[in-house]
């Protein structure tokens, strides 16, 4: 028993600091399936509230789709519950191979390797393919899982200003002496909802002989005309060397992720990526569900088309109401409030009106950039969006921020 009162006190003091700093995270218990309409117990112990979910990554509304659930049941019945092994011992089924091939086809890549999550894919890929002779050059706003992956890698690491192509070019020139260079970006940035300039990045990478890495977790399934991702949207389909993505968002939302791209990169991951070597892969039930999701998406663009229509409707409605939004054309629509407390108060008031949307503030976003991040789904109907718009507008009026500029909101509430 090494957990003495001294040890306990150390942790209690740290937790108190988190609470006093106003950044203690609490969970809200959902008693229904994931969908546009959910039943939530919050705070814990209170009666269930029916609310509209405006903050899920359930972009295509497939998390509880009957065909996906049916396919998952069949997977459970025919392939069992677990593998009790990592892939290279006795943890690979035919359906893992089938899914890897299907993902490659969907993304237009040479090969794919599954991981337990995209967090694991990002944590494992860099160490598997780079050494101290190489350099990673990343956008300054890439996802935390990429940052962690780069920390685990011996290659030199540098950054470029967010989506600033001139700065990226300078960095490619600065590091021209390195053996291998990898430019690293998110496809769609999860907090701001903007899209990377992949067309320009492909050009720069070709000019300076660098590989391009894109985490398309907030894109796969719905960005681009047939939902293949940001590479389709930017006209560079087939030109991305390394794509990582998740099955935990639009593609059914359960869990799992992958590295997809050049076959040598994928093979190196199969030999050296530690989350692949030392952890079970996706459970058969989830693999079966994702296979069905890809079938649905390959057969029709109906869901991504509806998502696009919904997202445009939502963004236009908020703009007309007079909110300050982050520019973009994706289903991630951040409503800017700038002040951390205001974002928390706003979120609480929304919940009281039956709208579930979370306020984000430092350190999740930069200081003075607090916001409510809204995420639209193909599972939303217009009546959901209208109800949410009415609630946002009422609360916006209450705090007197409608039609106000960033400067005016900051003058009223501070940073």
């Amino acid at each position, binding site marked *: 028993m090494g957990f003495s009162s001294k040890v306990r006190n150390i942790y209690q003091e740290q937790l108190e600091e988190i609470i006093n700093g106003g950044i203690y995270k609490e969970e809200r218990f959902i008693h229904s399936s994931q969908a546009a309409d959910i039943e939530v117990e919050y705070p814990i112990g209170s009666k269930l509230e029916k609310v509209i979910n405006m903050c899920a990554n359930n972009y295509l509304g497939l998390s509880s789709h009957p065909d996906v659930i049916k396919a998952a049941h069949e997977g459970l019945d025919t392939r069992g519950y677990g593998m009790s092994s990592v892939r290279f011992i006795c943890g690979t089924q035919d359906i893992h191979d089938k899914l890897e091939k299907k993902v490659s086809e969907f993304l237009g890549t040479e090969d794919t390797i599954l991981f337990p999550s995209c967090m694991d894919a990002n944590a494992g890929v860099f160490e598997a393919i780079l050494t101290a002779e190489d350099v990673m050059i990343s956008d*300054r706003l890439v996802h935390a899982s990429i*940052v962690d992956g*780069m920390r685990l890698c011996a290659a030199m*690491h*540098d*950054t470029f200003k967010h989506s600033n192509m001139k700065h990226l070019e300078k*960095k490619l020139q*600065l*590091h021209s002496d390195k053996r291998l260079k990898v430019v690293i970006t998110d496809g769609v940035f999860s907090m701001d909802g903007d899209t990377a300039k992949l067309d320009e990045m492909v050009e720069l990478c070709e000019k300076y002989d660098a590989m391009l890495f894109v985490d398309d977790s907030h894109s796969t399934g719905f960005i681009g005309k047939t939902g293949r991702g940001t590479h389709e949207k930017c006209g560079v389909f087939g030109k991305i060397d390394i794509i990582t993505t998740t099955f935990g968002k639009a593609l059914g939302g359960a869990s799992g992720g992958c590295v997809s791209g050049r076959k040598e990169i994928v093979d190196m991951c199969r030999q050296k990526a530690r989350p692949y070597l030392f952890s079970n892969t996706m459970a058969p039930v989830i693999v079966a569900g994702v296979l069905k999701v890809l079938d649905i998406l390959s057969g029709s663009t109906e869901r991504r088309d509806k998502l696009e229509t919904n997202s445009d409707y939502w963004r236009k409605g908020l703009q007309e109401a007079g909110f300050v939004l982050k520019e973009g054309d994706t289903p991630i629509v951040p409503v800017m409030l700038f002040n951390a407390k205001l974002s928390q108060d706003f979120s609480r008031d929304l919940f009281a009106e039956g709208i579930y949307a979370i306020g984000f503030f430092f350190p999740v976003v930069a200081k003075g950039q607090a916001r409510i991040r809204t995420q639209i789904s193909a599972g939303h109907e217009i009546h959901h969006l209208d109800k949410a718009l009415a609630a946002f507008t009422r609360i916006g009026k209450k705090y007197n921020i409608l039609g106000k500029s960033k400067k005016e909101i900051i003058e009223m509430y501070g940073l």
Partner: protein
Amino acid sequence: MEEMKDIILEYVIEEYLEDEDEELTYDTPLISGGIVDSFSMVSLKRFLENKYKISIPDDKATPEAFDNVNKIVALVNEFTA
């Protein structure tokens, strides 16, 4: 000496500040002040090495030694002297 200070200050402003209105002096804490993160420090090190034809060993390129422009100048001088 003054010239080196200004060259480094100008590089740091151009390289790390997102907002042109932000002010930066020779004493502004860069790493501990959250302006330069540990990953982004590498370009500053490479800039200094290329510009002043020096090689700064990794054990000398600490966050402490890079924490403001005055300290960076002192570090560069250690290797150019």
